[in-house]
């Protein structure tokens, strides 16, 4: 539902953006609606109402189509956002941007690498969500033990597999930033770095404040340290959940533990010292021994209830980390709406401040209320377990439909 608001938001509050960059920026936005949004909503509606009506194959295909179109959506939106971060494939004539190279727009490193990072982060979020809820049901001894054991394995494995790529692909963006948005990187460091750059930018674009807000460093650090934490928890949980299999395959177990110990050590060091600096080798060695021991003598840990609740507590972490990353990416490019071409204040619609404040308050109130309602509902559905889902439930209690399960 917020997608509808965003679609209108460009012209509504930022008509200067339409007028300057509409020829270029509008194309990926339009294509996102036609390629992805349309299909996603149609297929989701069919999936919800298709329980017991469509064949199983068609029904499951529908939810996969919803998933695929969601990722397609992410790509097109990041192409649009990538243009705002680092405009490419265009030329400016008479104060208006014209599209000259569509391929450059689609291959913009600021978009492509970010899509990889976001896709991995989305999978990590999903993995930890499924793992947390499964752990919650297992520790409360829900009737569907097999069901939740399987979903716990799926969630933990997904989280463990993607939590390192999230970090690696995310880190790949920093060299690109160094070339395209040096100010964003400079704002993370001491003030001297930004002063020199600000002077340079003022010469290039005229006088103005080119230093992004200082809080972006906190946003970045929140994302980074929570990222470390998620990798460590996911790796430990995966070794625990798959310990029986690993004991049967000793060579694989040795390789996995050795491979995992290095990044775990790196991140443990990062969490302790900010950088994996002093005592690095000691930390690696301790991690190697600790993880190895975990696989060998950890059976009682599986019955440790607080361990299960730790997985539940991890559920909000990826969301907070994502918000941190988003604030860093968008806050760090201030004062630009199109980097180096159009400042945010010049893109503002000719609308009175009162109208602007009114609409901001109205949208915030509605969307925040819906967010809370959504959380309450998610928690309720989670507590109810797989048998309590209402999807496709028949209004007449007598006409029994087959009870759907996820």
């Amino acid at each position, binding site marked *: 539902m917020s997608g509808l608001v965003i*679609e209108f938001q460009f*012209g509504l509050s930022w008509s200067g953006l339409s007028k300057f960059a*509409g020829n270029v920026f509008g194309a990926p936005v339009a294509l996102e609606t036609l390629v992805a949004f*349309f299909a996603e909503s149609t297929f989701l509606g069919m999936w919800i109402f298709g329980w017991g009506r469509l064949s199983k194959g068609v029904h499951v295909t529908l939810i996969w189509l919803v998933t695929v179109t969601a990722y397609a959506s992410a790509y097109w939106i990041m192409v649009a956002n990538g243009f705002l971060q680092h405009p490419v494939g265009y030329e400016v004539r008479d104060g208006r941007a014209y599209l000259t190279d569509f391929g450059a727009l689609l291959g913009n490193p600021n978009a492509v690498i970010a899509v990889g990072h976001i896709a991995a982060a989305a999978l990590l979020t999903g993995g930890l969500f499924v793992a947390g809820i499964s752990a919650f049901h297992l520790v409360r001894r829900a009737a569907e033990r097999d069901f939740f054991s399987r979903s716990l394995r799926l969630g933990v494995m997904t989280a463990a597999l993607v939590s390192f790529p999230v970090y690696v692909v995310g880190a790949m963006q920093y060299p690109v930033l160094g070339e395209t948005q040096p100010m964003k990187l400079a704002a993370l460091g001491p003030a001297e770095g930004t002063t020199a750059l600000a002077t340079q930018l003022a010469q290039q674009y005229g006088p103005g404040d080119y230093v992004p807000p200082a809080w972006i460093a906190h946003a970045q650090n929140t994302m980074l340290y929570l990222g470390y934490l998620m990798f460590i928890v996911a790796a430990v949980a995966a070794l625990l959940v798959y310990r029986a299999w690993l004991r049967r395959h000793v060579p694989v177990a040795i390789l996995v533990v050795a491979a995992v110990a290095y990044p775990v050590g790196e991140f443990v060091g990062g969490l302790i010292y900010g950088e994996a600096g002093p005592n690095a080798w000691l930390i690696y060695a301790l991690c190697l021994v600790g993880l190895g021991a975990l696989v060998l003598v950890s059976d009682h840990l599986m019955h440790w209830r607080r361990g299960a609740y730790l997985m539940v507590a991890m559920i909000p972490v990826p969301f907070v980390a994502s918000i941190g990353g988003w604030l860093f990416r968008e806050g760090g490019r201030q004062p630009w709406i199109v980097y180096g071409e159009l400042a945010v204040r010049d893109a503002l619609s000719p609308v009175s401040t009162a109208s602007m404040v009114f609409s901001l308050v109205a949208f915030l109130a*509605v969307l925040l209320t819906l967010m809370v*309602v959504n959380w309450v509902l998610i928690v309720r559905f989670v507590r109810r377990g797989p048998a309590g889902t209402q999807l496709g439930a028949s209004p007449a209690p007598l006409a029994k439909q087959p009870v759907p399960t996820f």
Partner: protein
Amino acid sequence: MEIAWLALLGFLLTGYFVLGGYDYGVQMLSIVLARDERDRRRVLGTVGPFFLGNEVWLVAFAGVLFGAFPFFEGTLLAGMYPLIVVLLVALVVGNAAVQLRSRWDTPSSRRFWDRLVAAGGAAPAVVWGVLIGVLLHGVPLGGAGSFVLPWSTVLDPFVVACAVSSVALFAAHGATFLVLRSSGALAQRATATARPLLIAAAVAVVLTAGVAFGVGSAAPVTNPTVAVLVVAVLVTALVLARLSLDRNRRGPAFIASCVAAALPVSLVGAAQYPYLLVSTEGPRFGLTVAQGAADAATLVLLAGFGVVLVPVVLAYQAWSWWLFRGRVDDRVPAYY
């Protein structure tokens, strides 16, 4: 090339008026027609499988508006600011209410959501009526290429009449859809409601046209003959829908009401062509299709995608209509 894109833009908005139109009609009628909780779930069940897919026509319209007509989009949305904000808030709230009403089991919470469901149908109908009215009436677009909508325009008798017609039209369209999709006593009540509503909508449209001729307009309609023709077809469609219902022919009645719901879009497009926005400040300030459209290179590029994507979109939407074509009764699963 911009003519082709104007046609696609019009097509998407028309699709939204037809499909979203019956959603809003059904939402408005849901508290009137349903006697109990089971009725209400069945009323919402008629739009159920299509509800999410219908709204996307508006999202696609907004996307194409931005991609193909960015210079129109910025001026239009910023100028109509308060109306668009009300529309979006109403759509989000109405959409949420439909999806959330059955998630709580207490009667008081259901009553609360049901009122929001109805309001979420009525408010968009009003706002779209006002928007159509304002576009036909003309906006104070000056040399700066932007405008601020004055309240006097919103309260202009012609614009108010458009809003009333729009509510009547969507309600009648929703009722005709309910006749097609519901069954039993509910279908009978829907028929009894649809018949007077169709005539009321026809009368409202005729009166609105009368106001336009009587009061006159600040910016004269560019193609008055076409405008009168479109209005005549619209009224005829409503009357035909009523006549079909009298003969108990539900399919033709719904097709006729679809035509009626679609025509306000053609009216705005055809009556003011070649303008997208007519200015009350004088014809030279109006925004033409060519001025509002994106650069030719962008349009050609988008056309390559459009030729492939639009048939695909139509195909899976049609598949969804075909799958859920039957009448809704107690055996059909409900979710809303």
